[in-house]
């Protein structure tokens, strides 16, 4: 177990060391590629400045992600009850993923102003579909025998959903949650890039415009840290809410 954590860390440390050595030996301009030590220094020196930006990003991401999960859940409940609607809408949802958000984001700022709405919408756009697809496929993973059993007991459509389909979808739901969470922070930063008052996206934009690659990378580190923290939180929540003996084993 310890090895499973240490080996990747060792490889990561080796990568950083290589990067540091390259910067020092090749004398790369820190304007172009700052060494890891420089990024770390920038991060520590500017932590007070970065913190409120990180916090802004985190709130938008959390709000967008929560809304997305809630919305995906509601949609999934409706669609599983209406297979015709599912057949009509899913191709559109999938096609929506082929739209380059880089082009859409500035337009969304125009359409919806620079408040929370466009940013939350973008996060929802990015994270909604993986959740929805996971949930719907989770519902379908219910063993037919479970459905048969309940129906023979006189259960209606809704009871079958609540007592068999929904619990069966738990692993798929957690998997979808994990995929979506991976993109929540990144999508927020992306949305901020197109227009915001505050946030890591704005910080990165300003750092870039001021030729501070070290600050850009420091913000990247913060963003990756936030995502990893979010994933760890989900992992913990999954463990704590697990029912049955698999509660002891990591099931997510």
């Amino acid at each position, binding site marked *: 177990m310890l090895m499973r954590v240490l080996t990747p860390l060792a490889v990561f440390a080796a990568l950083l060391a290589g990067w540091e050595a390259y910067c020092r030996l090749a004398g790369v301009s820190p304007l172009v590629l700052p060494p890891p030590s420089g990024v770390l220094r*920038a991060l520590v020196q500017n932590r007070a400045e970065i913190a409120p930006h990180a916090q802004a990003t985190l709130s938008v991401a959390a709000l967008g992600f929560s809304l997305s999960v809630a919305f995906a859940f509601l949609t999934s409940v409706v669609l599983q009850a209406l297979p015709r609607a599912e057949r009509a809408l899913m191709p559109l949802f999938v096609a929506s993923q082929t739209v380059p958000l880089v082009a859409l984001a500035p337009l969304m700022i125009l359409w919806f102003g620079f408040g929370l709405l466009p940013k939350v919408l973008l996060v929802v756009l990015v994270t909604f579909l993986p959740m929805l697809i996971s949930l719907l496929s989770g519902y379908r993973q219910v063993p037919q025998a479970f459905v048969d059993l309940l129906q023979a007991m006189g259960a209606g459509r809704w009871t079958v959903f609540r007592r068999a389909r929904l619990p069966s979808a738990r692993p798929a739901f957690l998997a979808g949650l994990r995929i979506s969470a991976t993109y929540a922070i990144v999508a927020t930063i992306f949305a901020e890039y197109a227009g915001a008052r505050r946030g890591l996206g704005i910080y990165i934009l300003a750092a870039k415009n001021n030729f*501070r690659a070290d600050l850009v990378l420091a913000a990247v580190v913060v963003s990756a840290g936030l995502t990893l923290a979010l994933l760890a939180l989900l992992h913990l929540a999954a463990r704590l809410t697990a029912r049955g003996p698999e509660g002891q084993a990591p099931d997510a």
Partner: protein
Amino acid sequence: EIPAPTDAQTPVTIALDWTLNTNHIGLIVARDRGFYAEAGLEVEILPYSDTSSAALLASGAADFGYLTSLGFLSARAGGADLVALWATMQHETGRLVYNSDNAAITRPADLSGKTYAGFGSAWETALIGTMIAHDGGDPVWDTVTLGTGAYEALAAGQVDFTLEVATWEGVNGALLGRHQSAFRYADYGIPDQQNGYIATRATVLAADPDLVTRFMRATQAGYAWAADHPDAAAEMMIAAGDFPNPALVHGSMQAIVEGGYLRDGAAPVGAIDADRFAAMARFLFDSGVLKDAGGAVLAWPGDVSAWYDQSWMAK
């Protein structure tokens, strides 16, 4: 000097500071009238992208760069090995705009407490703060970083003011029938500056001064021709680029020529004025905009005359 034979053209790239517009007119003229080819150069004008031309130039991704004044000064002060060779606009083309029907704004002091649509560069704070303070207001306002969305946001009344280039967005606003008013920076304590630098890396200048000379002279010829034939140059530009609105290009060229932006008095096109260069640099140093690679605010070095080099202009 002897023009190089046309079959051995030297490839040269130049990165732009913004989507192709009339600031770049001389480059297009020089290319499309064959000035570059005559100088033995095959010039590629790289399209604008999300990566700043100063960074592209400093990293070696391009041979020359068309830089904003701020872009050049920040990069140079920050330690990038850049030398300015040229200044296009003899006066500041930037200005602060707001909607004319916004009764709450009559003078820069009124901007205090208003919402500004910004672009995420460090000098905007110094600029706006100085203007408000110079006019006696409290330099406090709300910034929303919007980039190009700023103009639509202003037109929609979502923000109170933003910055624009008078000879481009300003002309466009007028063409769209938008009623907008503007404050000139120079009227409120900002030194009038030249804008639109062409720069290269000092290493390029040292290694191949002849190339720089050939490139810059052809460029100068292009701008000179454009200043003398604004409408023909505008047509050339329209043919070269993908302009949804040809009237904008013509209008812009007209504004540039009428405003005396390209030719100012007897100075040759593109000449860098030592005093105004130093004044602007000084302003940026003093307002704490310029920082070193580690992020520390830089102190005025006393002399910035080494930051530009126009020896290519001399015989």
